[in-house]
């Protein structure tokens, strides 16, 4: 029986190819996902142990940072080097090297050049260094530093030069000699791009302590020598010397613990998430496989009937179909694993990942091979079960008299009832959740107040039920939708009429194919709509809370820099203004920390502000204050329309504003007339931002603390994107460390980038399922063509040209793809809107956009792919000479 099966398989090999391709894609995805998970784990491990250098042991806290409470954290961060008794540790038998991990951030100066420096402690043993010394040597004596090579370039120094180091904690600047250059080959400090090395005295100075023993340290690395027994003795001795809660651990064990805490518990979560998409892809592939086998068995009825006539049993035919499915699944899965391996190997070899800071390696284990193959084979066999059952229903009589198979199988009542239930239940859940949400936004009591997550789960669950119900009942509504669309398309000509009639021939197959495509398109559309809604809602919320699009402020804000930023494409207007931080007392007695900004009259201000300032002129002696506080929204009321401004100072240590020394002396106070206007936040750092005439600054009434640049942005008019404007303005200030660009546009740009990145990733993952569904469309078409050989030949005989036949197949494919696609877009938009409503209502009025771009692209791709899919079957159909119409079956 098996040899017969294999022979039959060989003959129908062509028909099995699309199903095989579907399996290859699905298993390749799963294999690649598993490889990706392995690589991520491996990279994290290497990252956490990169700081070891060649050390084989480390000293660490007994609890991971993730699990530490406040008391633990206090204890941990008050440990200093001397607590660890470094001299006693070094004296222990077997300890060949010791290095404490302490860090400092400083600013290095060489003449006019400045650079930020991130530095770690040095070690006398080169092997214990976490970075590689590329030139010179590591610091050994006092006053030495080895700089990261990028920092050295920025400063323009070479080995042997001197630099000055200063930091927030250092009491005074220190001179240092550059004795070497470093490079972070192992990726120990990816966030900083590397680290410089400082000698112990410099490290102490930069941390603001008098000697190295007082530097805060939480980790140390040891190089321990000897056989396992000796090492154990050494470690025990060390543990006795160490302070409470600290132990020495081997590199391996420490790495495992670190990976766990770094990834927040499980890199496996990411892998599982990705595998979910793999399962989705395989599900869609299963539909394609089921279709293929149904037609395969139908085509083979004669042969199967003959086999039954000469003595094959029902069980043998059943087993034969399953065997064929299993073989196909096995071969295709193996190919898929190979493809996945090749893909990941290409990605890791190309250095793509190292550009984002994590150089990944290809890490193989048994799961990468076994899981996809097992999944693929099992899936294929399960998908072929129903056709196997059909094969057993072939009677020997059919060998003598071929029966014209007609689609008389009525779709089960069970299916209809089940799907109706799911639809009803799902819709009810969604409606309830939406109702509760609307009550919440209207300010009425609702479940959302205490059980938000329940309501959210309800909405998600409801959507899932609706979706599932529609997929299960696809065999009812999809053929009808196609009928309607086809009737419309029939107006286009005879080819369309034939296509319209052909689609109705096999509603089950058409429904399965359409459902496969529906799944992918709905998911893509949901994500796109959700992302678009999120972006729009966020934008609206931000815009309603802020009156100025973007501000840039900082210690080293200069006019030159401001004019550079003003030239960025998308900045339509800007003001460069002096600022002073003042305290203002309102009628209630509260002291409001206000940023006072000097502008040249209200008209200048109106250029950048989105608010109705009334008829205020901001002349001399007037101050413009907002109605409400930016923190908490409390109203400001001012006695007599006059207000006194007293200077406030910002303490460098704690960032609190307090009454400055000047104010206590009564100096620098200014009394002005108050006008209030309804404008919103200008800066998120102050309770209020007020505007006075710039003359108060030029005349000396107010002391200029700094400068601020206010900007009005219109990205659409300038033909650019918000993100481009934001990065443009940021890069105008790139050469200064202290300027920050904030404001709603800035926040929006950051949000949108993040949302777009996530959306791209998710859509990319779903695209795999969509691809398989499109393969399914091609498959259905080619199967239909095979079934319709006789009819196509008849049509050709009575006058259908080849072009007309090709066109009718193309129209069939287009109808299938577009109707499923449109249904998917409609569903996805609905789900996306509901989801956005549930999630974003808490932040503002939800916007319900229709993402024309993504939805249009999806439909366009589906249509194009459908057309492409019809090429090969069409060619096969026109190859059939009309003579076959006259041939006996």
């Amino acid at each position, binding site marked *: 029986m098996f040899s017969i099966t294999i022979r039959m398989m060989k003959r129908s090999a062509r028909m099995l190819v699309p199903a095989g391709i579907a399996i290859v894609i699905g298993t390749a995805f799963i294999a690649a996902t598993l490889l990706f998970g392995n690589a991520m784990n491996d990279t994290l491990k290497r990252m956490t142990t990169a700081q070891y250098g060649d050390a084989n042991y480390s000293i660490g806290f007994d609890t991971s940072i993730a699990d530490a409470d406040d008391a633990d954290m206090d204890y941990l961060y008050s440990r200093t080097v001397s607590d660890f008794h470094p001299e006693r540790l070094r004296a222990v038998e077997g300890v060949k090297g010791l290095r404490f991990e302490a860090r400092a951030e400083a600013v290095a100066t060489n003449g006019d050049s400045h650079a930020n420096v991130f530095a770690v402690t040095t070690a006398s043993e080169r092997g214990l260094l976490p970075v590689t010394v590329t030139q010179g040597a590591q610091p050994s004596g006092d006053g030495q530093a080895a700089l990261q090579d990028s920092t050295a370039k920025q400063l323009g120094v070479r080995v042997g030069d001197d630099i000055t180091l200063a930091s927030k904690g250092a009491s005074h600047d220190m001179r240092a000699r550059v004795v070497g250059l470093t490079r972070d080959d192992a990726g120990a400090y990816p966030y900083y791009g590397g680290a410089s090395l400082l000698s112990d005295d410099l490290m102490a100075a930069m941390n603001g302590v008098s000697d190295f023993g007082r530097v805060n340290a939480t980790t140390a690395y040891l190089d321990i020598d000897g056989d396992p027994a000796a090492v154990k003795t050494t470690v025990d001795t060390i543990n006795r010397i160490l302070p409470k809660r600290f132990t020495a651990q081997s590199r391996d064990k420490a790495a495992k613990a670190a990976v766990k805490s770094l990834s927040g518990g499980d890199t496996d979560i990411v892998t599982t998430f990705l595998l979910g998409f793999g399962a989705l892809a395989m599900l869609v592939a299963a539909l394609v496989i089921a279709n293929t086998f149904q037609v395969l068995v139908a085509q083979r009825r004669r042969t199967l009937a003959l086999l039954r006539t000469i003595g094959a049993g029902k069980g043998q035919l059943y087993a034969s179909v399953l065997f064929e499915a299993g073989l196909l699944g096995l071969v295709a899965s193996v190919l898929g694993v190979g493809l996945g391996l090749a893909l990941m190997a290409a990605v890791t070899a190309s250095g793509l990942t190292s550009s984002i800071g994590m150089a990944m390696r290809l890490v193989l284990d048994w799961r990468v091979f076994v899981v996809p193959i097992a999944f693929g084979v099992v899936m294929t066999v399960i998908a072929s079960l129903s056709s196997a059952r059909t094969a057993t229903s072939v009677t020997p009589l059919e060998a003598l008299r071929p029966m*014209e198979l*007609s689609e008389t199988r009525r779709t089960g009542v069970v299916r209809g009832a089940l799907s109706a239930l799911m639809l009803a239940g799902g819709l009810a859940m969604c409606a309830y959740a939406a109702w509760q949400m609307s009550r919440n936004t209207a300010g009425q009591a609702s479940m959302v107040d205490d059980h938000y997550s329940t309501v959210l789960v309800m909405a998600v669950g409801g959507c899932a039920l609706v979706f599932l119900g529609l997929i299960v009942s696809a065999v009812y509504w999809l053929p009808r939708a196609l009928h309607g669309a086809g009737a419309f398309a029939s107006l286009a*000509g*005879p080819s369309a*009429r034939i296509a319209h*009639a*052909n689609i*109705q*021939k096999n509603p089950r197959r058409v429904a399965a194919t359409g459902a496969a495509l529906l799944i992918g398109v709905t998911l893509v559309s949901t994500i796109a709509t959700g992302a678009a809604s999120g972006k729009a809602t966020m934008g609206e919320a931000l815009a309603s809370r802020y009156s100025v699009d973007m501000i840039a402020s900082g210690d080293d804000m200069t006019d030159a820099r401001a004019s550079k930023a003003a030239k960025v494409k998308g900045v339509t207007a800007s003001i460069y203004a002096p600022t002073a931080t003042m305290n203002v007392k309102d009628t209630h007695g509260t002291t409001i920390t206000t940023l006072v900004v000097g502008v040249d009259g209200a008209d200048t201000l109106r250029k950048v502000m989105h608010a109705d300032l009334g008829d205020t002129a901001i002349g001399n002696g007037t101050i413009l204050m907002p109605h409400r506080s930016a923190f908490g929204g409390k109203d400001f009321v001012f006695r007599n329309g006059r207000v006194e401004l007293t200077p406030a100072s910002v303490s460098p240590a704690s960032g609190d504003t307090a009454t400055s020394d000047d104010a206590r002396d009564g100096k620098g106070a200014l009394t002005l007339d108050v006008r209030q206007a309804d404008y919103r936040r200008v800066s998120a750092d102050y309770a209020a931002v007020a505007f006075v005439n710039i003359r108060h600054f030029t005349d000396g009434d107010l002391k200029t603390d700094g400068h601020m640049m206010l900007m009005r942005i219109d990205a659409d008019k300038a033909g650019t994107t918000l993100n481009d404007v934001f990065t443009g303005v940021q890069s105008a200030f790139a050469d200064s460390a202290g300027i920050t660009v904030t404001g709603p546009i800035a926040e929006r740009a950051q949000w949108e980038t993040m949302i777009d990145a996530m959306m791209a990733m998710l859509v990319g993952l779903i695209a795999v399922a969509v691809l398989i569904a499109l393969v399914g469309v091609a498959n259905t078409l080619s199967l239909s063509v095979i079934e319709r050989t*006789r*009819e196509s030949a*008849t*049509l*050709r*005989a*009575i*006058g*259908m*040209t*080849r072009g*007309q036949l090709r066109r009718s197949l193309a129209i069939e494919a287009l109808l299938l793809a577009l109707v499923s696609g449109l249904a998917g877009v409609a569903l996805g938009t609905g789900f996306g809107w509901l989801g956005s409503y549930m999630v974003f209502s808490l932040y503002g009025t939800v916007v319900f956009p229709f993402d024309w771009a993504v939805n249009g692209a999806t439909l366009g791709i589906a249509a194009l792919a459908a057309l492409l899919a019809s090429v090969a079957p069409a060619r096969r159909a026109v190859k059939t*000479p*009309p*003579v076959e*119409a*006259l041939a*006996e*079956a």
Partner: protein
Amino acid sequence: MGRHTNTGAGAMLRSGRAAAKHVGHMADAAYDIPMPPARTGVARGTVAVEAIGLTKDYGRGETAVHALRGVDVCFERGRFTAIMGPSGSGKSTLMHTLAGLDSATGGHILLDGSDITTMNDRELTLLRRRRIGFIFQNFNLLPMFTAEQNILMPLTLAGARPDRSWLRTLVRTLGLEQRMNHRPNELSGGQQQRVAIARALIAKPAVVFADEPTGNLDSVSSTEVLEFLKRSVRELGQTIIMVTHDAVAASYADRAIVFADGRIVADEPHPTAERMNALLMEERRNTAAHARPGR
């Protein structure tokens, strides 16, 4: 085109010699088309289909099958002709090539005045749409269309408007008024074949080819179908060429040709069932006689 000296198109017209029988001979080389030595006094304009030196071979070399061996035959307009012969005689191949469904290896076919052996696929398709009608043994109706849609299919493919009065005439003649909205699987065999006949006639073709039209029908339906075919020739002026192995069916025709081994071996006007059976038996005996001494 080269011509033999004693025969030429003009000479034929002028000769006006009647010929009762016609025997084919081996086709000659490429360009010279030997005209048949005798032709029924047929004016050019009344010929529906004509085959000149038609040859069809399948395969090559030793295993080559010579389905048609230089056949010369002429079919008049407005006549019902039957082509008979044993299985494997090449009668179906003759019909396929005459209808343009299969290509000829050699020779020429003139259908309604045009040489179809020089036509490409598109021209042949248009020919089949407008000037040729088909009736198949297994009906070959399109299962997803109603009877009316099936009948009008050739016109639908042409994008042409149907002649409603002609349709009514056909439907009435074939007795299909009650069945127009039914699908093929709701019609009996006889009704399906009548729908097929209507489809063949809807475009008012020059020739209708019928391949064993009664092969899948019981005797009552067979008689009906043959009657209709005869009536469409008599009343509607159609030209029908029918391939059949049934002598009774052949008796409905105006002329019966017996085909054997790629050649025409008998040409009988006003055939009767007995005469045709006799001819067939004679042919069978000849074949058996030739087959005995180890060929």
